[in-house]
């Protein structure tokens, strides 16, 4: 894009994919600086007085959820490759994922709550896998 005058422009088609992202990036920069100017003191006070993340959060549940989810996502296609086009990667990985996550989220772990978590981990993926993969033939990992 070249400027012939303050308002008149000529758009070069070969580089037209950069026009809008550049304009938006400039606007974002201006807005970011405006936020720093108008709220700088508040931000500084928060940074100097506040407790730094991840202090004060439930580390086990937060990072446990993240770790289990990443493992689940990594495992699904790997297991799915062993049983291609069956959705079993999703099914076989969802059972331990649901059980582990349910157990992680439990605040009182006893025989009854663990049994419910186990039943949920077995039933929910089975129903979803059967309806989507078997009944509707929808592709699952």
């Amino acid at each position: 894009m070249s400027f012939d005058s303050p308002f008149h422009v000529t758009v070069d088609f070969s580089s037209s994919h950069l026009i809008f992202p550049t304009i938006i990036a400039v606007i974002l920069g201006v807005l970011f600086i405006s936020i720093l100017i108008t709220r700088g003191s508040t931000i500084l006070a928060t940074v100097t007085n506040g407790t730094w993340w991840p202090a004060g959060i439930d580390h086990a549940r937060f990072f446990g959820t993240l770790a289990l989810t990443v493992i689940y996502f990594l495992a699904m296609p790997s297991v799915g490759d062993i049983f291609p086009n069956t959705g079993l990667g999703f099914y076989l990985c969802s059972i331990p994922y649901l059980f582990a996550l349910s157990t992680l989220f439990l605040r009182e772990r006893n025989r009854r709550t663990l049994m419910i978590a186990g039943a949920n981990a077995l039933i929910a993926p089975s129903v979803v896998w059967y309806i989507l993969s078997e009944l509707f033939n929808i592709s699952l990992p």
Partner: protein
Amino acid sequence: MELLSILSPLFFGLVAAGTVVGIIFGAIPGMTATMAVAVCLPLTYSLGLENGLALLLGLYVGGISGGLVPAILLNIPGTPSSITTTLDGYPMTQNGEGERALKIGITSSLVGGLISLAALYLFAPALADFAIKFSYIEKFLIIFFALTVMAALSSSLLIGIFSGFLGIFISLIGAYDISRGGNGELRLVPEFLEYYLESGFSLLPVLIGLFGLATILIDAEHGMKDAKELSKIKIGGAPFKLSVFKGQIINLIRSSSIGTFVGILPGVGGSAASILAYSQEKNFSRNPDKFGKGAPEGVIASESANNGLTGGALVPLLSLGIPGDSTTAILIGAFTLQGIQVGPLFIGNNPITWDAMIIAMLVANIVMFLVMVFAIRHLAKVVTVPKNILFPIILMMCVVGAYTINYGVMFDVWTLLIFGLFGYLAHKIRLEIAPFIIGFILGPSAEIYFVKSLESFGTFSIFFTKSWIAVLLWVLIAVSIAFSISVARKKKRIVD
């Protein structure tokens, strides 16, 4: 007579079944009307055009309506268009008015759906003609207007606008869409991700990540402590009376009309309707401060607008072949399956199908109302399920939704994780998610409209001088920003 032969018990049964399944899809967080229509689309192969459309339109109406259940009870919008329902619906639930909020939402949904349906049937050709006259310039300004309105709705105008532009920026990742006149060149993509991000991030995994995973991460951060309180929510605390709509007729009609109008504008569908209606109701309210704290008029505006969308979004689809939102985009697939081309000639060439669609939408709205009013206590049980049971299932369904939306792309599942983390981070640094989402949805269209306008006219001044509609839109943009600044100043004065 030919129409009567189509209106068989099977036709009505499919509408009812579609509506009920759609409500369930909409009510389960992470599952949407779009997904319901996508999942059931293959079933229409063997049903024929009218019966197939009966099922899909039931799913559409049910899916949009069902979104209010988790929005009100869980603070998670079941569909993107329920974003603003959470703002007042969830506080009402926290005040023990869950059932009241749900029934207000359901009744508003019915009114919105019927008004939009009447508009679709009576004024479709005229409304379509009006929308067709919009050039790229007016379309770009409408997107800009929608963004400023949404920013005005935010707790801070500056943060709201920043969030909206950030959404636009992220939506531009990938190729400059060649099918819409772009040059097909990639931008903002690291080399190792070029294969995955050629078409940018898919919308549904982004939405599921922001509204599903991020919500669960925020809860996990707090240790799922409120699991017991969740089961103690008194859904049936306050009784629902129709008198709550006293003084709300203008709100109902205005919000339904906004939903219908926004639905008509191609690409400006989804949550823009409910956000516009909500902010207008807030702007006109004598007590704007009570919004966000459990104001029934907020739920009325949001729900009548998002169901108003259902009829409106079908106008560009049936008259231009352009979908009004992501769900109607999938509906094109139903026509394609049956070998029917939607476009300007569709209604004239297929009057029976057109009438059958109107009847299906009418029946779907009525079924939706009856099912949700009489079975709301059963539907609402989703919140009585303990979080340690519900949230892992939601996460699993989020994965299913993300994976299946593009027929089996694992990168979409990682997109869900990326935007789940982004949503969590945005919550921590107080970015506004609603303007971000709208920027993300409308960004690619805004780019095309903006660049093509410059290519055609070669001057920035055209955005101000093209037509009286452009001038009117600039006035509305200015009013929206001025109003937001005025409200912020008033708040500051009160605080001082």
